[in-house]
């Protein structure tokens, strides 16, 4: 499947992009992250969360949407 991956804040600086399409053949968030860690080794030691369908989800979650979002620690307000 084709996934749209979004990056925010510090993560967008590391990947040097805010969004990209990735053709992904496995099932879980953690499997997607393995792919991203190879592509962007500096992601690996960063503190971030993953959102699917606008909700934070554990890395063990199965991918069921078309958009996966990587979010650094929130710092609103």
């Amino acid at each position, binding site marked *: 499947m084709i996934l749209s991956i979004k990056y925010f*804040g510090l993560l967008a600086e590391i990947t040097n992009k805010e969004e990209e399409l990735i053709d992904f053949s496995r099932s879980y968030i953690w499997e997607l992250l393995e792919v991203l860690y190879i592509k962007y080794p500096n992601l690996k030691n960063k503190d971030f969360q993953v959102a699917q369908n606008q909700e934070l989800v554990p890395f063990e979650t199965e991918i069921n949407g078309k958009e996966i979002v990587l*979010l650094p*620690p929130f710092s609103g307000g």
Partner: protein
Amino acid sequence: MSDKKIKSVFIQGAISSEFIGKSIAKHQTKTSIGAHNIFLGQVRADVVDGKAIKAIEYSAYEDMANAKFYEIRESAFEKFELICMHIYHSLGTVNAGDICLFVFVSSPHRKTVFDALEFIVEEIKAKVPVFGKEIFEDNSHQWKVNN
């Protein structure tokens, strides 16, 4: 009298004191209100390694942020006897000294507004995907971390 409909939360740039004053004025026809409580977040010119922060550039995962603001709003109305509630958050550049967050709650009674306001502000800090890029005088930057 409660105005529970969804409004846009994000404002481009700083939130002005005139906007806040006008927002207060709008509530003076609501004569069941006895107490308002307002929280304002202001950008601090913190000094890090000898350089002062001159501004914060805010970005957000807007779809999720708006959904979270809506959830926070609904749960605040459920938990507390509120008449009104308004939240505004800046996007883009806000200079040091300017206001980036405006939360406004109104109720018949004061104890309600104290509890509600603190609940809402803590929920925003914890649950809404907003990101602050702190820009120093020399245009270098670091990413804001909440505590």
